[in-house]
Each structure stands twice: as structure tokens, then as C-alpha cells.
């Protein structure tokens, strides 16, 4: 993921094309498609680039990648981890420390496609039920998964973990497991808004913990241009993360979205006609107005 610098348009009313308004969404869908194609091209066409599934895999017979969440559950269940699993989990952890933990959710996890679609369809169909769960349910549930591994001495949560079930269902061709995707879609669509990814999922909660140091962050660097159209809040699956950055000018707060639960999905960048947001690093606190000031002061 490179961080593009969107052209600063002098004329804000300039119409952006459909492609420009869906750039990051399309890139994410392509990434999801690419990763799952790489997994499936083996069993379907006999071309083995990646073997295994998201729980643990081997790329080109050399690079081990393992899910750190399952590894930690295994530790709680009282198992010694093998070197392969430790190596794989460390590589994956370092990756998410760099790009932001919940990149797993928005750029990789197949459930994201279902919940994003449910959220989109909700708006189209004007379904207006609110959420049945508080946002922090996921952290309580994350605790439960570890406690249950400890009590039962086994990977208790992995017996029902929808994230594992769905990705395995797709990669290993297990139909009933794959159907969980539909269940979550319908639950998010009809029963509770952004329920799974935004409120319940302990896998996302686990990966969000890597977000504390995630280098790639979204910045509301042109927040002075914001006209409060609310498009970003409407499209964001974790809308609570935007406010501190977008409206932080009066508190002199950083324009960076530093909340752990920002999934770096980039939808806010896509939908904003004023080009307020961009991908940048967590060390770049500058806003456009500062940049002008800096230029002026250096001259």
C-alpha cells in the first residue's frame, strides 16, 4: 500500500469520476480477491503459490504465515507453540503493526464484503434499526475467548469462530461453513447495524490491538475544507473514530485518525468530495493550513 497524494483541486466543485469515488473500495476488493485466488489456484489449477488457509499457511514452500490470534488461544489452552507457528505469527504481527491492525478486517477478511454490502443495502432500503450491542462488546468477547481456552484447555472459540469458518469454508470448500457468511449478512442487514464487524467480532478486537502502533493512518489533513456533509460518517463502519480528527482543530488535536478501530478501509477518502482525507504515516501531523504557514515562514 503506497500512500498516494491526492491532487489538491483548486476547484472543489469539480466532479470526480465513479472510479475516483470508489478507488480504495476497489483496491480492497481486489486485494481480497487476489489473496483468496492465490489460495484457491492451488486446489483448483494445481498452481501452488500459497498452501493452507488464513489460520496458517506456507507461501512458495518457504514463508510461513500464521494467525497470531489462534496462536495466543493455543497458548491459553496450554499448548507449546511450534517454531513454525511462532515464526509465522511474528511475521504477521509485524506486518499489522506496520499497516495497522484492522487492515486485516477491511483488506483481507471475507466477512468484510458481506457486512459492507449489508451496510450499503441498509441505506438503499432505508432500514433504520440501530445497533443492539455496545461497541466494546468485542473486547469482552475477546476476553471470553481467552478465558474459555484456559478453562476448556482447547481452542474453544475456534469451534464457532465465524471468521475462521468462512475463510476456511471458501479456501477448503466447506459449504456449510461458508454459509455463515450469509447468516452474518442477514443479521447485519435486518437485525443490528454494523453488528458483526463493528461491535461483536473478537478477531477484529484482537487485531485492533496492533493498531496502537500502526504506522499507516488516515489523516483529515484538509479538515478546514470540511463542509459537514456527513458523507464520511455515513459510510464509515466505525464512525466514532472520525470525529476527534476531523473536528479536532479547535482542541488543537492531531488530524490523524488514531483510534484503534479505524480499519484503514479508505472509504472516507473515497466519498469526501472536499478531499479532506488521505493515507499518511502516524508521524505526519501536518494539515494543509499548517503546510501553507510552514511555507510562508520558511520564505
Amino acid at each position, binding site marked *: 500500500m503506497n500512500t498516494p497524494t491526492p491532487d489538491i483541486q483548486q476547484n472543489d466543485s469539480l466532479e470526480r469520476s465513479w472510479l475516483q469515488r470508489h478507488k480504495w473500495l476497489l483496491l480492497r476488493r481486489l486485494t481480497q480477491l487476489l489473496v483468496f485466488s492465490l489460495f484457491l489456484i492451488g486446489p483448483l489449477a494445481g498452481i501452488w503459490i500459497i*498452501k493452507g*488457509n488464513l*489460520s496458517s499457511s506456507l507461501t512458495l514452500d518457504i514463508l510461513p504465515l500464521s494467525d497470531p490470534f489462534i496462536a495466543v488461544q493455543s497458548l491459553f489452552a496450554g*499448548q507449546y507453540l511450534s517454531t513454525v507457528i511462532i515464526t509465522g505469527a511474528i511475521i504477521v504481527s509485524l506486518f499489522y503493526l506496520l499497516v495497522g491492525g484492522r487492515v486485516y478486517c477491511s483488506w483481507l477478511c471475507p466477512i468484510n464484503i458481506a457486512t459492507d454490502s449489508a451496510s450499503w443495502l441498509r441505506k438503499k432500503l432505508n432500514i433504520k434499526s440501530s445497533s443492539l450491542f455496545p461497541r466494546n462488546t468485542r473486547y*469482552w468477547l475477546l*476476553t471470553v475467548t481467552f478465558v474459555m481456552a484456559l478453562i476448556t484447555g482447547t481452542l474453544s472459540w475456534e469451534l464457532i469462530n465465524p471468521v475462521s469458518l468462512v475463510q476456511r469454508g471458501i479456501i477448503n470448500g*466447506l459449504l456449510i*461453513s461458508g454459509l455463515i457468511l450469509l447468516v452474518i449478512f442477514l443479521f447485519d442487514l435486518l437485525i443490528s447495524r454494523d453488528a458483526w464487524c463493528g461491535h461483536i467480532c473478537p478477531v477484529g478486537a484482537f487485531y485492533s490491538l496492533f493498531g496502537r502502533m500502526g504506522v499507516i493512518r488516515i489523516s483529515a489533513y484538509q479538515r478546514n475544507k470540511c463542509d459537514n456533509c456527513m458523507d464520511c460518517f455515513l459510510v464509515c463502519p466505525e464512525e466514532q473514530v472520525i470525529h476527534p480528527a476531523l473536528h479536532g482543530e479547535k482542541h488543537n488535536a492531531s488530524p490523524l485518525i488514531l483510534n484503534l478501530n479505524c480499519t484503514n478501509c479508505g472509504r472516507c477518502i473515497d466519498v469526501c468530495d472536499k478531499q479532506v482525507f488521505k493515507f499518511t504515516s502516524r508521524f505526519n501531523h501536518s494539515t494543509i493550513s499548517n503546510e501553507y504557514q510552514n511555507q510562508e515562514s520558511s520564505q
Partner: protein
Amino acid sequence: MSLVSSQTNAKRRRFLTETARTICGVSLLGLGLGFYTKNASSLATTSLRPPGALTEDDFLAACVRCGLCVRDCPYDILKLADIVDRAATGTPYFEARKIPCEMCEDIPCVKACPTNALDKSLTDIDDARMGLAVLIDQESCLNFQGLRCDVCHRICPLINSAITLEPQHNIRTNKHALFIPVVHSDKCTGCGKCERACVLDEAAIKVLPVALAKGELGRHYRLGWKEKEKAGQSLVTPDAKHEYNLPDGLKYDHAGKGLGKD
């Protein structure tokens, strides 16, 4: 001021209610998960684990359900359990009656396992103990009827070692022999070939989990003749030669005919 404090009170009350509700809900889910785990942790007797699998409890804690063993199985015998299958969700298993293990010499499934769930110290496939074959239905087994089916014996990769045919007298005809297939637990790998090959509609010989198929002698129990063999001699002090005080012309054979004439 009082308005502000009542607002914070209301806020606090809402926070506490919400937190309490979440904790209750999540705990209930945990409880349900616990019951389900207990239930789901027993492997169906028709399902077998790949070679080198740890005992079921340890296996379930160690296996990450990645399916690498399934991918490297050259005969597509192993599969990952779907929710409705007869093994814990996502774990690898095979069913002997459907498709038994081919016992590859290089054991690719064990090599592929990134965890300790399939024990890497298994290097000779003949040491695998995926289960134990048991001739469970003697009433239907053709060999027990005096017929020479012998299929389970013939198909066994460790023929004459894991399954032997033991001749017995056939009391029905009184002139033929029964050739009884006998499984030896110290050799049987549990590959399942015999169960697959059994010609009956429902197999008379079945591969069961070792724990189910195998009895165990009490630890304190000793078999006299084996102890004697080990010691090389009788373990009790031999009887002193008994002197019988008998009238002339009579003798007493202690372990034989008893009292008799010289």
C-alpha cells in the same frame, strides 16, 4: 449545577447498566460455548485422525485447522471437517470405510503440519496408531462361518503381522478348520484398509479409536507364567520332595495317577 450532576448521574447509570448487560450477555455466550466445546470435543468413532496425531484433547488444542496436511495428502484421503461433519469443526479426519489411509512411507501429512498436532517424531509409518482394527461382529464375519474370505487379512499392509489367520477346529463340520482373523494391537496402524475391504454390507471388522478398542490390565496385575519366563525359574520355593510312608508294594504319584501298585 444540580442539572449537570443529575446528567452525569444519568450518564453513569446508563454506562453501568450497559456494561452489566454486556458482561451478562457475553458470559452467557461463554457458558454456552463451554457446553458446546465439551460436546464437540469427542471424535465420532467412525472418524480417524491423521497419522501421528496427539491424543484427541491435545490434538484439538494444538491443531490450528489450516488444512496443510489435507493439501499434502497425495490420495485426497484427509479432509477438513465442515460444521455438520463428525469431527470438531475444521480439524482433519478420514473415514476408514469410505477411504482408508495409504500409509505413505514419507508421511507427507505429518511433515506438512506447522504445529505439534501431528507428532514429527513419527518417522516410520508402521509406528502410526490412527486407531485399532477390531473384528467386532463375529456372527457375521465369513471366516467365523468357516468360509475362506480372508479379505481383511489379504489387504492388510502388514499382512501376517498386524492381522494373522489362526486355525481353529470347525465344530459344525467336524472336519474343517476355521481361519480366524486376529488383529495384533502392537502392529496394527489403524489405516482402515481392512474395514474398507470387508465384503459385508456393514463391515464386521472396524477401526476404532485405540482408547475404545483396547483393554488394559490393572497395573498391579502379574501373569504368573510370564513372570516365571522373565525370572527363568519358578517364583515360589519348590516343594520339598515328599516322602510317603506306604506299605510295601504301593506307591503314590502326586501329580498323576495317585495311589497305585509298584
